[in-house]
């Protein structure tokens, strides 16, 4: 039910335009999402998850390029470690580095994607969700009726991406879904290296994703069980640097095997009391090999990491009086990291999250106040070199947050929130060989913001304008600092960043005589300043990789099953360092994509996407050029 409700909330603002009335019943979150997009289940043309997220306001995607390149999401300059990615309300996490590679998740089977900053506060949400900074929600709808969906996408860089999804009703109250997806790409794309054109090598990727879903209803509840397997093999092309002509840039390979089982059960017991139970078991294995026999410049590493975790969460919600709700959620999480790296201390972490939330929700006004506690205890093997004499460490933090949402007029909604959250130091921060510092404190993020939304819907024109100013402060930021030798670094809580930002969005959609035309413009201003060390060269400079201005513009035109969409993005100049000098300047860029789709009677859909149509050369991450012009064709067919 939880995800159904999320979807319901989502569908109301589907495509941001068909929004009409924001739900005011108890199942709406206190705050509206910053962004949400309805992916339309079986109809929409296949797109990459990172392609969806990079169009959102306030979002910076770090993309190392190509199908196999790491793709992470940063919201409002908090840093990707503060952004939780949730699949059906359960966090996809990674205690090793707290970064979720969006490239490993597909939009196949997704009903929608939504982005929240601050105190979302939805009934029966998990304590981890109260604890996180910003949240990206990937929502799947339960299989409803028997259906089969076949898709094939392919094109430039030898990309081949077939997938299938089979839904089957097994009984009146139970249904299943089987999904499979393969992604193959040779990753060979030309890029501009000053005045010569070179080809990216060793950027190939092969990945297989398998998924099984069981979903059912109980009397007044709903449950779901998901099995997810992912295996991949990819090359790391490495940063583009000057290298002697006889030596390759990189021969490094990575192999992944991820598996998880997760599920939830939500039950409404009396109409006033309801519970949600969630669990997740996961195992993720990563193997790196730098292949020194192919590259004499490579560090000789041939190592693996294995991360295992178990998670269980119980949320309870009680309607204490009319329009007044009290929620109590508690999560338990345990994980271990194993590796064959030398002197590895095999850290283990147990953590507890508990959240108490009080909410008032009426038709025109919603308010919530929440208090979350996080406690984590680490234990690890004694370091062979004795770098850490302690063999355990514990950390805890209180995280208050509050939000209000007021429908000031039929056409105007105003939200406001404030939130303090902490992220735990990652295993890499703490225990990385010759680098970690076992006594780190959690990194703190304070967020506060307003959101003004004006909208109107008539038969002829649907429009929405949103203006969202905010202030964030990330303190006790974990930063790698060298010690007395360049071979021995340490991590310290010394970073401080102040972020003042403004998100603006305008969306307009008009329909007439079978035609439909829409324009959506998004603009983000972020002044994210490094205030770590007063008096230093970098004090008061823009932090790395955050542009002052960025935005997107989408224009679409539809007629009789034909849809043409033009997507344009721009990012102003950025710096790869806090030193905002010419040496570290990354040039501004604009990129345009064109998508043409045609639907035939709801069963068959053809699509073509031309990315970077003007073949601009640009980089999201310094040293990692992005592909130039590319073309992908897709076909979706649903026989039943």
């Amino acid at each position: 039910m939880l995800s159904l409700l999320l979807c319901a909330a989502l569908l109301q603002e589907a495509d941001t335009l068909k929004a009409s009335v924001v739900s005011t019943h108890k199942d709406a979150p206190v705050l509206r999402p910053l962004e949400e997009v309805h992916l339309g289940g079986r109809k929409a043309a296949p797109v990459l998850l990172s392609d969806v997220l990079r169009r959102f306001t306030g979002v910076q995607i770090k993309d190392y390029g190509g199908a196999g390149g790491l793709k992470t999401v940063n919201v409002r300059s908090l840093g990707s470690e503060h952004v939780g990615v949730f699949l059906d309300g359960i966090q996809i996490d990674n205690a090793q580095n707290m970064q979720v590679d969006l490239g490993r998740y597909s939009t196949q089977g997704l009903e929608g994607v939504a982005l929240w900053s601050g105190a979302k506060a939805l009934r029966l949400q998990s304590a981890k969700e109260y604890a996180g900074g910003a949240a990206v929600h990937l929502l799947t709808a339960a299989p409803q009726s028997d259906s089969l969906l076949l898709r094939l996408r392919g094109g430039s860089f030898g990309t081949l991406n077939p997938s299938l999804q089979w839904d089957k009703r097994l009984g009146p109250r139970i249904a299943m879904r089987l999904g499979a997806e393969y992604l193959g790409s040779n990753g060979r794309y030309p890029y501009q290296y000053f005045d010569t054109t070179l080809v990216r090598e060793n950027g190939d990727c092969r990945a297989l994703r398998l998924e099984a879903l069981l979903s059912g209803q109980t009397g007044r509840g709903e449950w779901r069980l998901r099995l997810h397997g992912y295996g991949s093999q990819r090359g790391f092309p490495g940063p583009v640097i000057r290298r002697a002509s006889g030596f390759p840039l990189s021969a490094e390979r990575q192999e992944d095997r991820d598996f998880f089982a997760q599920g939830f059960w939500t039950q409404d017991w009396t109409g006033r009391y309801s519970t949600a139970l969630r669990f997740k078991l996961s195992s993720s294995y990563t193997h790196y090999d730098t292949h020194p026999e192919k590259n004499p410049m490579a560090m000789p590493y041939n190592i693996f990491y294995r991360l295992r975790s178990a998670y269980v969460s119980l949320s309870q919600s009680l309607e204490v009086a009319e329009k007044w709700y009290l929620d109590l959620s508690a999560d338990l999480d345990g994980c271990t990291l194993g590796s064959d790296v030398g002197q590895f201390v095999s850290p283990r972490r147990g953590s507890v999250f508990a959240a108490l939330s009080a909410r008032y929700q009426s038709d025109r006004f919603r308010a919530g106040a929440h208090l979350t506690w996080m406690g984590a205890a680490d234990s690890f093997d004694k370091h062979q070199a004795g770098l850490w004499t302690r063999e355990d460490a514990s950390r805890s933090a209180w995280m208050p947050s509050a939000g209000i949402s007021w429908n000031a007029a039929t056409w105007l909604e105003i939200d406001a929130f404030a939130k303090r959250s902490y992220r735990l130091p990652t295993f890499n921060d703490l225990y990385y060989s010759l680098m970690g510092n076992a006594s780190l404190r959690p990194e703190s993020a304070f967020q506060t913001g307003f959101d003004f939304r004006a909208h109107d819907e008539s038969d002829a024109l649907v429009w929405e304008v949103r203006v969202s100013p905010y202030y964030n402060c990330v303190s006790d930021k974990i930063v790698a600092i060298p010690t007395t030798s360049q071979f021995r670094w340490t991590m310290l809580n010394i970073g401080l960043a102040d972020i003042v930002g403004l998100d603006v969005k305008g969306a307009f959609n008009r329909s007439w005589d079978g035609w439909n035309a829409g324009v959506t413009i998004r603009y983000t201003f972020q002044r994210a300043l490094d205030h770590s060390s007063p008096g230093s060269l970098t004090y008061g400079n823009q932090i790395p990789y955050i542009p002052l201005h960025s935005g997107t513009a989408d224009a679409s035109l539809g007629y009789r099953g034909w849809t043409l969409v033009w997507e344009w993005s721009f990012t102003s100049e950025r710096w790869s360092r806090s030193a905002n000098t010419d040496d570290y300047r990354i040039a501004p860029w604009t990129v345009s994509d064109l998508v043409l789709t045609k639907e035939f009677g709801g069963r068959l859909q053809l699509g073509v996407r031309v990315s970077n149509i003007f073949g601009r050369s640009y980089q999201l991450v310094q040293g990692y050029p992005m592909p130039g012009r590319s073309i992908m064709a897709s076909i979706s067919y649903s026989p039943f």
Partner: protein
Amino acid sequence: MKNQTLTVLCCALLCAACSKDYDPVPVPSKDSSLEGPKQDMTWLGKGPRKLFVLNEGGMGSNNASLDFLRFSDGAYVTGAFRKMNPGIAGGLGDVGNDIAVRGDELWIVVNNSGIVEVVSAEDETEIAAVQVPTPRSIAFDDKYAYVTSWAGAFASGSYDDKGNYTIVDSSNPKGRVYRIGLGSKKVEGSVEVGYQPEGIACSGGKLYVANSGGISSQLPPAYSYDNTVSIIDAATFTLSRSVEVAVNLKSVWADGKGAVYVTSMGNFWDVPTGLYMFPEQDPSKVGRVGSDAVKPEALHVSCSCIHDGTVYCLGTGNEYEWSVSHKYYVWSFTPEDTATGKGRCTFYPQEFSGTPYGICVLDGGADTRTLLVGDAGDYFNPGTVSCYPLDFNAGEKSWTVSAGVCPGHFAIW
């Protein structure tokens, strides 16, 4: 129509937002047109012309850079290699690791680019770029440049007649010293040394190579540092012997009067850093530097240099404490008897905080020694080069200029 309107709108937005393009830098005929903040260097006298500073840059960031301090007018010029060689697309490259002057040539070791770059000391224009796998440090004799290489840490190989490099063995983790002809600017052979060789010095027909084992310490089965100095006979270019000194060796200095110095970085845990010496005549007589008054344990080495037969070091007392900012002190050692390893230790009143990364002594004679300290800052953003007087007569010579990322290596021309 709608799309067009939007294009115009967006272009306007973009132009307002961020358009700022830079003109390509014109090629100066000579580097005299390059300017920078000026220091008073008149006290140095007429001998030396330039001080070159190599900024290592960050691994994978391709931002190694070459600065110089021109003594004639005291200008500190940054990014000289890129400015004088605009045609070399990748600039100096990725991770500069050592520089040295030989005649009117400056040799620059660019570690992660696999290149030893030879430029004119006169105007920094490229003379040759020699391919050497993971080169670390450089030394010269009359005929050759000798470059230590971690090649063996990763894989060892050989060059064929056409200069192509072929990997022969990727399981052998030992490093090598490559020999480059001073005239030919080509690799003319190599010899195997210890694990991950770092510093190298040439004296009396012998090459002294400090082996660190920095990578071996992270690898199975032994997980241990190297502790040897490899001694190579230059004439035959063969390994003549190995001498055990201390773990994790870094720099080698030969004073040309019969003493060879080696610094150890310790193991970052219970073996501290230190300065060791042995006589060229009998390398087995290795001793840790100290004096009757100063115990060797009290002498720490984070970075070092040699000037006029004296080794200067910067060290810090609380080496194993990672979570505090360190105070560094300066000391020097001058040998009195090479055979016994005894000598004179001098401590200077200067104290440094921050993250000193490399040092160099400038001496104009008549008690005007000054110490140049490259400070790496956070190792990520550009660091600084500072000048401090060591002698009273050097007086008010202190200054600080902004350099590149990780300024750590100096050479005087």
